[in-house]
């Protein structure tokens, strides 16, 4: 543990010294990570954690193949081929993120305790469920190596390991080979004392595909930075982000898409719902490189403000280098709940309070529907429905077949 403490101290130092992101506008709308002082933070016991994991598995009806926790040894299913990396620090720092690229990556590399490389080929299990349940500020590092011609569907649930202050963080890389497909679903359902940090970097080779769905529901503060690169010809990146905030939750969500080769496709759809005094800074940046004939890039950011004190800064941005036949669009729109839509619902006999919930739920469902894994979709849907009904987060409700999605699929 000594080794990690030293790393952590250095990491804090690095975090305060490294420069911000270079984009001037982005710097202006930048929410610095508020790292909690965990010196007196109460940790859970291993027994308490095991009990909580069991409860989550029961309620979500998900069996986790990999469980990451700082006080609980990495739990893994025998059906998953993984390589644990024992050496931390510089080796992974260079492998996943270079510290000069991003100060947060440097911080997270410094606090990293466990790193896992998941190698996936045509014969591996097609679905992988992962649970991140943290009690301190330990970061986890995961490298996915999806080999050529293989398909993998990953669902990652983030929850708080203790009821006291903690940091839930992960730094991951997705390497998707030729003709390979990866769907990764990240669901943050941490409680209101958890700071959530998510950094990822994805690269897709020729004809490969990444579908990334990020559901940011919990945590007092969320920092997310994702670099997704359609690196090979005909490759594609589809990213969806759903952010639901209330009370004083803060979100700083940055996604960078790159079209590096010909006939590549990148697409980012982001939806934000903010209530209370919550705040969200949303930065979607698309870069279309030179000589990328036939490239397509789109960024759409949509927000609904429920209360007067909630605030969204939506900043879609694009950079297109000289190239023929490239299609690139970006847009952003934020509004309160559509009054005409509300009147329509209410005119059918539904009370206004319920009508509002239906409208918000429908807005959120648009984004959740991009999750292809039906079980994960139901878990995401139940978390959101619970929040709409009970105005809380960080709690898992029992997933029942009565969910809206099941009903629709029956038709």
């Amino acid at each position, binding site marked *: 543990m000594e080794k990690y403490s030293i790393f952590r101290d250095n990491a804090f130092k690095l975090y305060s010294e490294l420069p911000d992101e270079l984009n001037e506008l982005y710097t202006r709308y930048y929410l610095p990570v508020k790292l909690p002082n965990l010196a007196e933070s109460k940790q859970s016991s291993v027994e308490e954690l095991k009990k909580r994991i069991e409860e989550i598995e029961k309620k979500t009806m998900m069996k986790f193949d990999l469980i990451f926790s700082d006080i609980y040894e990495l739990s893994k299913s025998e059906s998953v081929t993984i390589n644990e990396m024992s050496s931390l620090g510089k080796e992974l720092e260079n492998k996943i993120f270079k510290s000069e690229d991003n100060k947060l990556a440097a911080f997270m590399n410094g606090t990293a305790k466990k790193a896992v490389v998941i190698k996936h080929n045509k014969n591996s299990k097609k679905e992988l469920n992962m649970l991140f349940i943290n009690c301190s500020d330990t970061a986890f590092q995961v490298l996915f190596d999806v080999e050529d011609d293989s398909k993998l569907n990953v669902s990652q649930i983030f929850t708080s390991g203790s009821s006291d202050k903690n940091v839930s963080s992960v730094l991951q890389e997705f390497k998707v080979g030729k003709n390979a497909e990866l769907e990764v679903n990240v669901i943050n359902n941490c409680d209101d004392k958890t700071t959530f940090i998510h950094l990822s970097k994805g690269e897709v080779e020729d004809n490969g595909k990444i579908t990334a769905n990020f559901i940011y529901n919990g945590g007092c503060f969320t920092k997310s930075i994702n670099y997704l690169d359609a690196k090979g010809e005909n490759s594609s990146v589809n990213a969806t982000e759903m952010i639901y905030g209330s009370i004083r939750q803060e979100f700083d969500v940055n996604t960078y898409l790159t079209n590096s080769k010909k006939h590549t496709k990148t697409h980012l759809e982001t939806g934000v719902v903010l209530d209370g005094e919550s705040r969200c800074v949303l930065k979607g940046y698309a870069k279309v490189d030179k000589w990328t004939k036939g490239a397509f890039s789109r960024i759409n950011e949509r927000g609904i403000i429920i209360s007067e004190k909630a605030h969204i800064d939506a900043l879609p941005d694009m950079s297109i280098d000289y190239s023929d036949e490239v299609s690139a669009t970006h847009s952003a729109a934020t509004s309160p709940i*559509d*009054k*005409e*839509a509300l*009147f*329509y*619902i*209410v*005119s*059918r*006999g*539904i*009370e*206004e309070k*319920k*009508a509002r919930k*239906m*409208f918000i*739920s*429908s*807005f*959120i*469902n*648009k984004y959740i*529907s991009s999750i292809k894994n039906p079980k994960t979709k139901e878990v995401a849907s139940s978390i959101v429905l619970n929040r709409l009904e009970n105005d809380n987060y960080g709690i898992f409700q029992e997933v029942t077949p009565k969910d*809206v999605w099941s*009903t*629709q699929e029956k*038709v």
Partner: protein
Amino acid sequence: MKLEIKNLHVEIDGKEVVKGVNLTINEGEMHVIMGPNGSGKTTLAKTIMGHPQLKITKGEILVDGTSINELKPNERAKLGIFLQFQNPVEIEGLGLLNFLNTARGAITEKPLQFKEFMSEIKSTSKDLALKEELIGRSLNHGFSGGEKKKTEILQMHVLKPKLAILDEPDSGLDIDALKVVAKNVDSMQKEKKMSLLVITHYSRILNYMEPQFIHVMRDGVIVKEGGKELIHEIEEKGYNE
């Protein structure tokens, strides 16, 4: 259901749009309001339904003798009033079935078995020549103009109102769809003794319906009233004479 509108004045953002309308619709009667664009027809329909942005400055709307001026739209719907929207809103992500089931539950307060509910939906969709695949989709999302209008009529069947206000049910419909919708509404009105108010610019839909009363609205007031013969007069002379 009996609807009485007495000397109704309505404002939108301080501008008077409805300027003293009087209208009585008795149970089981079919009335038609015709008139040029901007004459206040849709505002009148939305006011009856209780649109929050429309302010009644004078007059009363009575249902079976009781004023509904202060009732919220959902309370009016529970009384049995239904408005078919001229431009139905699209709500992506809100399943049509889920919406209909919730609305039905809110109005009737009697839970219906899923199987029974689906059977009713499928049968009505067939009668309306509405593609079955649409009922599994989001509310009006990506629907054509005609599909939206048919979906409104499907909602009317599910909610079984006592008074239905159809605001331009004919717009966006081709001739075949127009016949289907008009005949469907006509038969439901007769079968259920539903009071009906149809708002339209054109007489075409009235060839397949049997209204007893025609009202012509212009500049916020009803300027002429009569029977079905008034339709032919409008067809020949237009609204200006």
